[in-house]
């Protein structure tokens, strides 16, 4: 099954307006399978969420994290077991903090890298110099409330550029929720999991293996068939409420690799099989593929979903 996760949420423990209890209720009402608590520079909400979920016997899963809010950028940390100090962060070597966090088992990502920053909102933009792109795990390619063209599109392009170069980075997204905000038609992160599965483990597996989906609603599945030398793409519906799509909207598949982007329209059956030789005329130069799903055309406004990268064997 696919699990929908909301990975970026604040509570009254930092600057949100929802208490931990209200956050749980809000996520349950919105049919999320799991959510992260990622308050700014505190983990005080962790025990509260844990206690409340145990009390309620709720089926929703929680992920414990924090948004490291530093002078030079925000670092989203998931599966965080303990608070590690960030104040000695080095503008020129954030990898030191990434490394320390990863050593403790946390998943480390860059949040809203192109957000507006200094002089108006110091720290919101990621200004640090990263030289080792293997040192962190994911990039938040959609921070839903942020402007599409100025903030989210550059983040998506940055992630694409890095994964096409071969860096093992996953794409995530989030609401950066600070209140009872409308989540309809907004991007959420999806991972594969099983009913009652350990969400922390499932998230770790997904992020470490670049198996995350970012979507407003449907999932774009892909299956590589080494015998037939084809990739089968299928659109699968999810229970995420609020996705805006009408029957007249055509689904478009975009496959981006190092050298070109192939665009194909999905037939009504919502399945499309593409021979590899259409994508790679030269068998020896198979690079990573980034599949994306659009409606009607490939303008960023019409982007429905980003699927995990494909690395044909």
């Amino acid at each position, binding site marked *: 099954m696919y699990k929908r996760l909301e990975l970026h949420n604040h509570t009254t*423990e930092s*600057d949100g307006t929802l208490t931990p209890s209200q956050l749980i209720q809000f996520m349950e009402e919105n049919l999320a399978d799991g959510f992260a608590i990622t*308050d*700014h*520079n*505190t*983990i005080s909400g962790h025990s509260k969420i844990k206690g409340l979920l145990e009390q309620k016997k709720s089926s929703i899963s929680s992920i414990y994290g924090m948004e490291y809010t530093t002078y030079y950028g925000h670092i989203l940390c998931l599966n965080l077991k303990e608070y590690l100090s960030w104040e000695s962060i080095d503008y020129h070597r954030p990898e030191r903090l990434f490394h320390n966090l990863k050593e403790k088992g946390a998943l480390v990502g860059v949040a809203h890298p192109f957000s507006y920053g200094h002089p*108006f909102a110091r720290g919101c933009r990621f200004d640090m110099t990263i030289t080792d792109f293997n040192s962190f795990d994911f990039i938040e390619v959609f921070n839903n409330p942020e402007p599409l063209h100025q903030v989210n599109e550059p983040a998506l392009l940055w992630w694409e550029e890095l994964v096409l170069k071969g860096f093992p980075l996953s794409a995530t997204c989030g609401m950066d929720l600070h209140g009872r905000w409308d989540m309809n038609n907004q991007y959420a992160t999806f991972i594969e999991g099983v009913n009652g599965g350990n969400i922390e483990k499932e998230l770790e597996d997904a992020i470490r293996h670049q198996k995350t989906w970012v979507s407003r609603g449907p999932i774009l599945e892909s299956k590589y068939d080494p015998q037939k030398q084809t990739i089968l793409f299928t659109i699968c519906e999810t229970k995420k409420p609020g996705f805006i799509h009408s029957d007249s909207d055509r689904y478009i598949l975009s496959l981006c690799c190092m050298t070109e982007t192939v665009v194909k329209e999905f037939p009504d059956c919502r399945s499309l099989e593409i021979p590899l030789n259409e994508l790679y005329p030269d068998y020896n130069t198979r690079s990573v593929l980034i599949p994306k799903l659009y409606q009607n055309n490939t303008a960023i406004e019409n982007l429905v979903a980003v699927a995990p990268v494909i690395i044909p064997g």
Partner: protein
Amino acid sequence: MVLIYETGGILNEGFVGQISYTVCLDKAYDAMDIEFTFDKQHYQTITEEMGKKIRESCSGMPEYEHASEEELMDAMRGMKTEIHTIVTMNDTFIGGVHKQLTTRHMVFSDDFTSDGCIPQERIFGVIKVTLAVFNVLLDGTNYRLKLSAGNQEKKISPDGGAYV
């Protein structure tokens, strides 16, 4: 609650960094209140000169440098001096406040804590309070820090959680 330490200081425009205070408690307490205040959070008036200075600092930033005067003024009105407070006890994190309250309390006890803080059964040893200063808009920004602790009957004040 007994006042154990009180200090203050003045921040200059543009300062970014930490100021830490370390207090060695004389004994174990069952509650602690750290009160932090600062002033001049926003520009009180925005002069032409200030606008010019901000405009200059936006040079080379495509998202700002073409902003109209009105947009720039709006953005400047929204700017703020931003200070986070972080507390450790014996080198273990026990609380952090991101909410930009100009008067804030960080109250710790076993059954009540302020938002951002982690309940503590006993308060003892070495308390370190760090002011993480993200942004200072104006020269002469004053701040004060008070650390109180006690074992008395607990009662929460109506104005933000301090023990009285």
